[in-house]
């Protein structure tokens, strides 16, 4: 079973900001991936710069760690920093960024806000009147209505009956 860095425990916090030029050359690919992640979210320039600096700093601190762990730790750091942008919840932060043009400022939980627009379900059942589909019954009904029609005519025009 896969356990990601998020589930494995708290990630490092409160790093000082480092210069971006200090990123080791071999980690450029990793940082480029993180950059791609940052580019796909609508951060403002200050947020983006800060997040990138945080990543660069974290990368330097992880230089002695196994590469398999380093990628996971770096992404966990990124998520952690994004979370700080929105009350400690990374997913809500991503959602808030995505919906920033329509999301009211006072909303704490964008996911709840989004779901809150869904209409409440008020269950009722669908039905229809009972239906007799038999062709025999249909013919009987037609014969019956014909008889009725005939009887009415006889009442209205009595000589019809007497003529028979």
């Amino acid at each position, binding site marked *: *079973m*896969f356990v*990601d*860095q*998020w589930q494995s425990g708290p990630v490092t916090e409160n790093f000082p900001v480092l210069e971006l030029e200090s990123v080791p050359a071999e980690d450029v690919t*990793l940082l480029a*991936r993180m950059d*791609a*992640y940052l580019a*796909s*979210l*609508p951060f403002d320039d200050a947020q983006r710069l800060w997040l990138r600096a945080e990543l660069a700093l974290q990368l330097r601190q992880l230089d002695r760690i196994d*590469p*398999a762990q*380093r*990628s*996971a730790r770096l*992404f*966990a750091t990124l*998520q952690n920093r994004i979370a700080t942008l929105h009350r400690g919840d990374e*997913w809500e932060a*991503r*959602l808030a*960024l*995505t*919906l920033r*043009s*329509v999301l009211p400022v006072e909303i704490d939980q*964008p*996911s709840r806000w*989004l*779901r809150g*627009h*869904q*209409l409440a*379900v*008020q*269950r*009722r*059942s*669908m*039905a*229809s*009147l009972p*239906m*007799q*589909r*038999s*062709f025999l*019954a*249909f013919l009987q*009904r037609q014969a019956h209505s014909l008889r009725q029609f005939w009887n009415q005519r006889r009442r209205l025009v009595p000589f019809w009956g007497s003529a028979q």
Partner: protein
Amino acid sequence: MKERSARIWETLSQGRRRWLTVQIIVPAAGLGVLLQHELALSQPLWLEILTLGIFVLLFAWISAGFWTALAGFWVMMRGTSRLGDSDPERFRTNPREDVRVAIIMPIYNEESTRTIAGLQACYRSLQRIGKLEYFDFFLLSDSRDPQAWIAEELAWASLCEELNAFGRIHYRRRPVNNHAKSGNVADFCRRWGNHYEYMVVLDADSVMSGDTLYRLLQIMEGNPQVGILQTQPVSVNRSTLYARVQQFSQRLYGPLFSAGLRFWQLGDGHFIGHNAMLRVAPFTEHCALPILPGRAPLGGQLLSHDFVEAALMARAGWEVWFLPDLGGSWEESPPTLIDDLKRDRRWAQGNLQHLRLLAADGLRSAHRFLFINGAMSFLAAPLWGLFLILGAISGFLFWNPDGASNDMSMFHYGLDNPLPIWLFAVTLTFLLGPKFLAMFWVHWSGQARYFGGTLALLAGVLLESLFAILLAPVRMVFHSLFVLQTLAGRGVKWGAQVRADQETPWPVALRNFGPLSLVGCLFLFAAQPFLGFWHFAWLLPIFLGLALSVPIAVFSSRSSWGLWARRHRLFLIPEEIQVPRELRELAPEYVDFLPKMAGDAFVATVVNPQFNAVHAALQRDRAKLWGVTAALCNKALTMGPQSLSQRERNILLSDRQAMLTLHRAVWSQHEPEKLAAWGLL
């Protein structure tokens, strides 16, 4: 109020329907008797009875269409249908402030760009007239394909963001799509029906103007006895030659037939399943569809639900009105012959199922007639085929190689006995008459310029008639096959429909129509000596239609041919001359805010932080599935997303935690091959 107007239109409709019945029966019976005099002299009894029976049935059916068109012509020339106080449009009132209307669009694996464009056009149109406050929108998805599901979900979120319409435009996906479209609508009624007094049902390719929507609401508000208001959607927006010919014929001849249909139906109208407003409470109370006993295709679930729903609504005492004059209602037709036939295959099965409801108690006679008429649309094909075969048998049995070979051919009688020519002329009049009536009406009412001018209109009608004549035998063969397949127990299911213009390649056309073309060519080159010249000439359009079916299917599917015709003012329709704003807004530039998703949508939803966040927010935590989703996450991460089946993807996509976990885990990976599998390298 319910009784007030009901009596007036019912009396009117009874008289009109009796007149129609007489007009159908008397000419058919009369011509049958005349034909019998001829056949009795020359054919054995069994052949005579069969030929006569089929002739009378077919003639009765085409005459129903002719008299409907004639009635429509009369109504349109007069400019009024003389309904007086029965006319629901006379009782339009402004809606109550608290009345709510749901505009629902059931979709199934549709192309979301077009769907969202249509919904947006309706929304903006209502916004422009300032009546948006009465309406809510629902995108009701039944999509099983994760690609379509994700695309429509993200498109919905973008649309809401663009229009700031969260809370007014809703999206719901059913995890289990039982009973197809009718089940989808029923599910809406069961969950949210209580919130709404009315609902407007749209197809994925439907568009309606705000004016029309509001007018429907006004009519409903002023007529509490009305259960369904059906508009006449006009086919638009296609560019293939086939679809443009269909658009042209529907736009030109359609109003005549629609006016005629309304003339008979009045408050016992039909419902075509979309572009209509329904009163939700009676629909929910009375329109649950029956499950037919026995197995599909003739038993089980009803494949075509709309006619039955209208019949059930009327059975419960509610009026169903068809409003062909309302305008502002559009749809798109199938782009190619193959797509059209695929749709016919489903309709054939659905309409034949309706025959099992024919004897149901309480149904209005108009709806029984609609059931019969619907079934006859497909049964006519095998009957016509049988009629031709009987003619061939007759010709063969009485073929005399010594020069009397043409004795059985109709034209051989010549001036000595003009009856066959009269029969032919009457049949031709009944078939082609409505076309000329429609053309006359368009010219007389000064609308010819909206069809490209009088000359272009005339050329269009002639070419369309030629096209229809050539396609008639192809439809006959396919419709006969559909009927036989249905009767033999081979059913079909509803599938996603092709909405976009796409050409039919030669191999596909050969696979579908190759045998027909072969048979047509054989008859064309070998049948003449057996049939005699006149009989052969009589059947030539049929042989030609069959022989040319492959090239017709290919060339008519080409947009370039359709656009060429358009440039030369052929098959133009008024909506192409004066494009309504709602249709202009279907253009791609009006939906360029939609997320661009290239490649695998599942991968995009896992990888893209925005897509992932929105999608996760719309899912639940499905704790009971966490054992399964954990294993699937592991499989996705170790073996890549390509290893997941569609079902497995749907399971993962429906659990919020699984999607959040996958997002983090994928971005945390470091092995190049695994990153590449998710498009991160």
